[in-house]
């Protein structure tokens, strides 16, 4: 029998799940800066990363406020250890090639956009305000990633093959977006953050439509990885944090 959760504790967790997912994906996408196949895509990737990191400041800023222990968004981003991160496993997957990066983006955007739309009705007005702001940006992310998945999937034999490989490899990491635990249930019951599985119909519909147009086939495989939202991560996240956090770890609280 689940113990009743303190709602503020659950809210802090829930906000970290949102903010850590945008932070980790934002950092991953920023790794492309200066390396993308063409200049326009380089700039587009950097802009998407920027939006995600901006949204992170809002989510983690609110998380720190809710926690009330004197931490702020930077402190949460740069001074927590890997097991304190609550991001989805999908977003910590390494970039792979350009197609792999876009497939990961699309699978996430297809969840992110309807989730933000639903969060606009949150009973917590602070969350509703952030979601309304972020949702406008993410609508552009989803249009772009969906368009490019279609263009590359329904492209040359080479691009099609790479997109299908990316889909096969990333698919087992998509289920976690729609899985619930006690924290999710407490927040959904309080009308603060919708239940993850309530996003399922919209995610399924968008993904099916785009994959069909892209001539790609979702794997039949039913097994789904989980644990990121509870702090159990793949080895990739620790490596990423070592790069992302080294400055603030080496020189704590320094300003310039």
């Amino acid at each position, binding site marked *: 029998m689940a113990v009743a959760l303190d709602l503020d504790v659950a809210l802090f967790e829930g906000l970290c799940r949102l903010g850590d997912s945008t932070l980790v994906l934002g950092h991953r996408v920023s790794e492309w800066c200066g390396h993308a196949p063409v200049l326009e895509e380089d700039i587009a990737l950097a*802009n998407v990363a920027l939006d995600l990191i901006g949204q992170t400041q809002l989510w983690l800023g609110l998380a720190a406020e809710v926690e009330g222990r004197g931490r702020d968004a930077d402190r949460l981003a740069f001074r927590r250890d890997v097991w304190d991160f609550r991001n989805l496993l999908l977003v910590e997957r390494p970039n792979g090639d350009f197609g792999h990066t876009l497939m990961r983006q699309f699978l996430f955007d297809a969840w992110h956009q309807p989730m933000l739309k639903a969060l606009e009705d949150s009973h917590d007005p602070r969350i509703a*305000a952030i979601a309304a702001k972020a949702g406008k940006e993410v609508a*552009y992310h989803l249009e772009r990633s969906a368009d490019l998945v279609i263009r590359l999937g329904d492209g040359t034999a080479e691009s099609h093959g790479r997109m299908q490989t990316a889909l096969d490899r990333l698919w087992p990491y998509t289920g976690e977006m729609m899985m619930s635990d006690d924290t999710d249930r407490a927040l959904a019951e309080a009308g603060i953050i919708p239940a993850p599985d309530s996003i399922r119909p919209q995610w399924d519909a968008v993904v099916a439509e*785009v994959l069909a147009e892209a001539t790609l086939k979702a794997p039949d495989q039913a097994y789904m990885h989980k644990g990121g939202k509870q702090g159990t991560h793949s080895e990739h996240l620790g490596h990423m944090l070592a790069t992302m956090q080294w400055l603030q770890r080496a020189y704590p609280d320094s300003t310039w």
Partner: protein
Amino acid sequence: MVALAQVWDWLAKVPDPEIPVISVTDLGIVRDVAYDGDTLVVTVTPTYSGCPATAVINFEIEKALRAQGVDKLRLERRLDPPWSTDWLTPAARDKLRAYGIAPPIDGTGAQGVVAGRINRLTGAALVVPCPRCGSEQTQKISQFGSTPCKAAYQCRDCLEPFDYFKCI
């Protein structure tokens, strides 16, 4: 205490750091100017969540007002309602066009994948006239241009690349 109308006048002369031909009031990001006791409170909303100009904009506003002798000043952030390109003043749109940036076409913001799909199926892509030659034969190069708020376009007639200040 300085009259609020005077403060608005001063703010109308504070340029956007990225696009200096328009001011912070042209952009519609100054949401309120009011007194809290004898402290002047200027409420600003960010354009995009991650816009790096946000910090610079606050700094420029503070610098401009302090230069006018305002010493009791507080800047506040307001997220709700989220900033929209609908708030760009008509004068700002003319200034953007003259500067070489196509102004936003109201009501054409991204709605998510559905709008994109309709565009793909019907070919009803957005027509963004070239700010240099006025031609409507233009094409989108990338959803994201030199900053998050712009998309990259190219004119098929005069061949010039240009930024489109996209709707949000």
